């Protein structure tokens, strides 16, 4: 499994290709790319600063990835999260899961995203038309992450 926290951008095609290249038994790669939007919670957004907790971040991502590997028969898993200053349209996060069949790939990809949103130490500060503000966590994200404990 690959885990990266980095400032620079990425190409989803390269990531998907790398996931698949691991094994000719891979029949399915489900992936997700999150982007900076130009609008959030009623305000225009002109940029974003992504803070994280070095050390703790890697711990949290490894734990999430290990749990995904335990739950599903994955042949490869890739988590890449950017930090620092980002502009609208910039990709923020890539998660890709590879398996023989699509169910495991889809489930694992979504599981990792749900956990990233609620269990990994990243925080977003937006520059909006009314000044800078910290983004607050959404209750729906917390509910999504909790959903996996009961269905697991």
């Amino acid at each position, binding site marked *: 499994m690959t885990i990266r926290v980095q400032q620079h951008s990425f190409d989803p095609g390269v990531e998907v290709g790398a996931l698949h290249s691991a094994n000719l038994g891979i029949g399915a790669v489900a992936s997700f790319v999150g982007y900076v939007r130009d609008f959030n919670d009623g305000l225009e957004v002109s940029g974003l600063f992504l803070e994280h*907790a070095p050390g703790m971040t890697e711990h*949290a991502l490894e*734990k999430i990835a290990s749990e995904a590997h335990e739950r599903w028969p994955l042949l490869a898993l890739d988590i890449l999260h950017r930090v620092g200053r980002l502009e609208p349209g910039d990709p923020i996060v890539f998660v890709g899961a590879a398996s023989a069949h699509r169910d495991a790939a889809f489930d694992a990809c979504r599981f990792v995203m749900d956990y990233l*949103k609620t269990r*990994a*130490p990243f*925080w977003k500060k937006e520059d909006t038309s009314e000044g800078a503000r910290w983004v*607050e*966590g959404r209750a729906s994200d917390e509910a999504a992450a909790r959903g996996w404990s009961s269905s697991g």
Partner: protein
Amino acid sequence: MIRVQYFARYREALGLDGEQLNWEPTFSRVDALRHFLLARGGVWELMAEPNLMCARNQELCSLDEPLEDGDEVAFFPTVTGG
């Protein structure tokens, strides 16, 4: 000795990214440390926020988590990655 870290909105509001506190036997759990900080009053009242999250030795934990001399604790608002 306990090393405490603050992140994101907490870091900004407190004007502090971390501090070292002498170990006190009363710091038996993370929640006891939180109450100690909360008692400082003023801006420290954010330690009473219902959504406060915490970590011990770089792992997310609950406020019930036991503490020991030498531990590292972090307090921060809800995470918003992904």
